């Protein structure tokens, strides 16, 4: 278990998450993609904390902030999905094309 290996695993998670965000039509699946990206970020943060900072507590603090961002993303994301669904009974990104026309 080296820092390099950890970072490459985290990169794989970020790549997978990016694929999900760009490819999924459903809002909720799109949020899953964001979560996976943040998962990779979390792993990277902790890897650097563990191998690169001699245990500086700010590294852990950053991880907690990443978790807070996840919670924010979930709360606001689901609220937006609900608001959109109330209006249009739609749950896909393609449904929101009012600005296009």
């Amino acid at each position, binding site marked *: 278990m080296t820092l390099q290996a950890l970072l490459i695993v985290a990169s794989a998670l970020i790549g997978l998450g990016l694929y999900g965000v*760009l490819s999924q039509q459903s809002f909720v699946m799109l949020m899953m993609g964001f979560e996976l990206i943040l998962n990779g970020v979390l792993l990277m943060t902790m890897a650097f904390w563990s191998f690169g900072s001699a245990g500086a507590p700010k590294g*852990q603090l950053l991880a907690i902030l990443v978790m807070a961002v996840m919670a*924010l993303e979930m709360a606001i994301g689901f*609220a937006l999905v609900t608001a959109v669904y109330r209006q249009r009974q739609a749950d896909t990104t393609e449904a929101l094309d009012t600005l296009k026309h």
Partner: protein
Amino acid sequence: MNDLISGIDIAFWALAAIAVLSGWRVFATDSMVRASFLLLLSFMAVAGIMLLLAAPYIGVATIFMMAVEMMVMAVFMVMFMMNPAGLNPMSMVHQQPLAIGAGVVAFIGLSAAVLTSPLPDQPVAADHRAIHALGIEMLGDSMLIFESAGVALLSAMIGSVILSSRSGRFGPADPGSRPPGLCEGGLPAGSVPDENKNHGMGHGMQHDTPNAAPQDTHGAHGAQGS
């Protein structure tokens, strides 16, 4: 000592494989409930790696938080997805080549950066009191940052309740927030749900009523302009 190191290595690679494989299956399974719990599995594998990294609090808190989040996620998936259990397999992806390309580029780019740049090597001491240090930091020097995160979460909570609840300040929010009609009493501007009580339209999909147009797998998503 050698055995111990290899044991940790085996555990790490196994957890890494679980994290990546289940992360990939999230976007390959049909059932939304399965997708959320696969993502939970991915998070739990990452949390296991954090435990190996001597970060017990962050690791366990990740499991704790993500179990709750993914449970909520599963419920929302079932609520809003047109086909939550993947009962009728369907493709719900768009711009596939671009997405694959972006994902691969992100992975290769990040990996290349990792492999070519000099990495720090100051491992955390074995007897480091990680949780104690974190607590002192959170309520000491970095208190402002920590409290800001708390305030941000609070405002997100309030915002999400306002966004998602039906009752607005002047009555139910849904009719009031429709755009006005293009002419007097006419259809609202923009796309609206079908008004002829054909609520199979929900989720932006039509189901086949005798008089409905033949299924158009692509155009039906938006429920536009009927």
